[in-house]
């Protein structure tokens, strides 16, 4: 069946300048946006089960390698340092300053994070919101800050999340969901959250 979504998606794959139409009219999820980028072959390579916010700013895509289960919020990724152009003119030089960005399996990049060229991230790592990553992020690290530094280890974040989830009244509904299915029981979960957060049944 031909839908607006399928037509605009095909156009976005055929002509990158038209991706804004797909984004604006179809508002694709991060999973769908990532699949479109993968099909278009923007990146050096890209694994499976990825999600990329459609407003993430990703430059120099040919120099970016993305593993499996990489999730990006609205972040910024660069494969070059533009200051080299100023340096070249100022000092009469002919220098290059381009590098690869290697994002391994199971990496989350938070909102507003900036990834500079010549870095490897992960596997099994989190770049916290607002971080500026200018050197490698070790396997299993959670980094934060400017410049990004180790804040904890992912294993500890997972343990804390598990402990926190034990206390959630809607935990049984979350556990019934399939992976990446955020629609199942959504209204019931929202109702329980509101009651838990504010102590009252919210009236719509």
């Amino acid at each position, binding site marked *: 069946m031909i839908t607006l979504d399928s037509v605009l998606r095909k156009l976005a794959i055929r002509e990158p300048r038209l991706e804004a139409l797909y984004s604006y009219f179809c508002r694709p999820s991060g999973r769908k946006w990532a699949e479109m980028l993968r099909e278009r072959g923007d990146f050096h390579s890209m694994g499976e089960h990825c999600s990329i916010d459609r407003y993430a700013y990703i430059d120099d895509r040919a120099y970016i390698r993305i593993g499996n289960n990489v999730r990006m919020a609205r972040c910024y990724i660069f494969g070059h340092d533009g200051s080299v152009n100023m340096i070249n003119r100022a000092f009469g030089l002919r220098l290059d300053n381009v590098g690869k960005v290697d994002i391994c399996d199971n990496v989350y990049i938070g909102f507003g994070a900036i990834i500079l060229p010549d870095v490897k991230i992960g596997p099994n790592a989190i770049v916290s919101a607002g971080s500026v990553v200018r050197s490698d992020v070790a396997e299993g*690290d959670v980094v934060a800050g400017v410049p990004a530094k*180790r*804040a*904890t*280890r992912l*294993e*500890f974040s997972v*343990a*804390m999340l598990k402990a926190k989830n*034990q206390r959630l009244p809607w935990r049984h509904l979350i556990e019934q969901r399939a992976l990446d299915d955020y629609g199942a029981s959504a209204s019931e979960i929202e109702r329980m959250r509101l009651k838990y957060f504010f102590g009252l049944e919210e009236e719509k």
Partner: protein
Amino acid sequence: MEELNKALRGALVSRFGVLQALEDDTALFSGGLMDSLSVIELVSFIEEQIGCAIPPAEITLQNFDSISRIVRFTSRFGANANVK
């Protein structure tokens, strides 16, 4: 290692705000008593106590999720460990 056990118990209360009664095997992180972001500060404290740097790859729940695990792990540093 008795000194480390005592120092840890003191720090968990005074620096990390763990107010519950602690057994040696009480799960600190997986039990939800400590925030995951505290682990790096905890490791720094232990490094100060034993006078050795702990490699990042060794910062695991297996080594740091309870007082007994921490004491057992740091005993590996043996003669190099200099408990303050």
